């Protein structure tokens, strides 16, 4: 998770957190705000160059701020620890509003990008995200998340060598597509000229 992706990010060198506006606490907040999987104090500390003790202290400060311990005005989100990992969630008091937004605001149709990604997974399963990205030529992280959320795909263990999470389609997917099992997926070949190059994509995947 915390491993580097090879695509040189903007500046690999560790910045001096204290010199940044908001300091180490804001840096911690920046990470917590965008991670999907909860991160432990150890992981957070490593990324920030801080001890887990210091991280826990900052986490508690953030919790107090979000809960409005001093101002009496809580924020709409809260910092929760789940099974040792930390992540920001919407505050539980607002569940009715969030529910309403989810129920009515979300489109009930898959985007073209989601459909294409699902198609790649269906015909190449079990397959890692990096491989799907390489085949589609775009980042598919958020689309994969949508498909997982929709129950159309599920995790299927990890790649024996790279350790990357693999994905497969679900029974619900078969049901929606209206087929009994994967062997009923129509042949791909007639649509695919030059299949021989497909292997090329494997080389692109780390």
């Amino acid at each position, binding site marked *: 998770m915390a491993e580097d992706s090879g695509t040189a990010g903007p500046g690999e060198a560790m910045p001096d957190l204290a010199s940044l506006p908001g300091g180490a606490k804001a840096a911690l907040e920046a990470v917590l705000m965008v*991670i999907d999987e909860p991160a432990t104090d150890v992981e957070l500390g490593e990324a920030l160059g801080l001890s887990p003790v210091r991280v826990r202290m900052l986490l508690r400060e953030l919790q107090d701020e979000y809960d409005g311990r001093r101002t009496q005005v809580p924020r709409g989100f809260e910092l929760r620890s789940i099974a040792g990992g930390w992540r920001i969630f919407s505050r539980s008091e607002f*569940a009715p509003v969030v529910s309403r937004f*989810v129920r009515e605001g979300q489109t009930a149709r898959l985007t073209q990008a989601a459909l294409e*990604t699902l*198609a790649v997974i269906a015909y190449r399963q079990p397959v890692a995200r990096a491989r799907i990205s390489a085949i589609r030529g775009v980042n598919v992280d958020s689309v994969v998340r949508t498909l997982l959320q929709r129950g159309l795909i599920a995790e299927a263990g990890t790649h024996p060598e790279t350790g990357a999470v693999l994905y497969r389609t679900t029974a619900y997917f078969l049901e929606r*597509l209206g087929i009994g099992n994967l062997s009923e997926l129509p042949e791909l070949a*007639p*649509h695919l000229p030059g299949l021989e190059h497909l292997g090329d994509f494997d080389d692109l995947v780390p």
Partner: protein
Amino acid sequence: MNGPGPVAEEPLEPAADATARGFEVTLENFTGPFDLLLGLIAKHEMDITEVALAQVTDEFISYIRRLRAQGEDWALDEASEFLVIAATLLDLKAAKLLPSGEVENEEDVALLEARDLLFARLLQYKAFKGIAAMMGSRLAGEAARFPRQVSLEPQFAALLPELIWRTSPHAFAALAAKAMEPKPPAPTEVGLAHLHAPKVSVKEQAGILAERLRTGGPQSFAVLTADAEGTLIVVARFLALLELFREAVVAFDQQSPLAELTVRWIGPDSAWSTERLSEEYDEAPAEPAAEPEAEPEESNG
């Protein structure tokens, strides 16, 4: 025409790289003829809005000559694009040699139009290059921000409205095929046959002109290009005439300044062949390549 001024001689990129990565590598730091021209202009600290293009002509042409030396590795349409620009620059250079006076005949007007068009295209390109630089820094800046996009908690995910699904298994397979279609490398070979610009050989055109002049007597450039099918042929014949002039087999007559130019054959009646012509436009002589130290940076602020 005299050969272009000498420039520092350095080896070019190996041709293998040129085929593998395409045009940009052939041109090293430049992404096209306009980019190169802008680079040369910047190097000479000239404002392209001033009529100063002729001053970079020699350097540009010498650059092209070295690119041509890479022969078949160079994509045809890209080469012809350079050739057209080079020819326009040659026109401008030739115009500088003419006595200045009022513009009278059609060829002069055409020449001015060619110049304006080249300026306009160059300016247009310069604007886009400026915008591209700005876009690049914005894209880089944005890449430093990461959006929050986390999975819905299970209790919310369960509330998502039932998915509307209208894709048949067959349509799904077609979608998969399209999504997994291998992305081929740049089509360096594909589609040459239907290109609007066929390969034009200066040497071949020189042969045609020589034949006509030897048998048909003195003729004007307008007559000599009357049957040309397209600009490239006209350009090639123009270059061919310059070559023939250098070989001292043709002479130009002009009754008065800006009067019509007549071309006359003064070479041997027979026993002359285009083999004697310099090969700089058509084939790849093993001449060592040189590289002008043009800055790829744009000249505007």
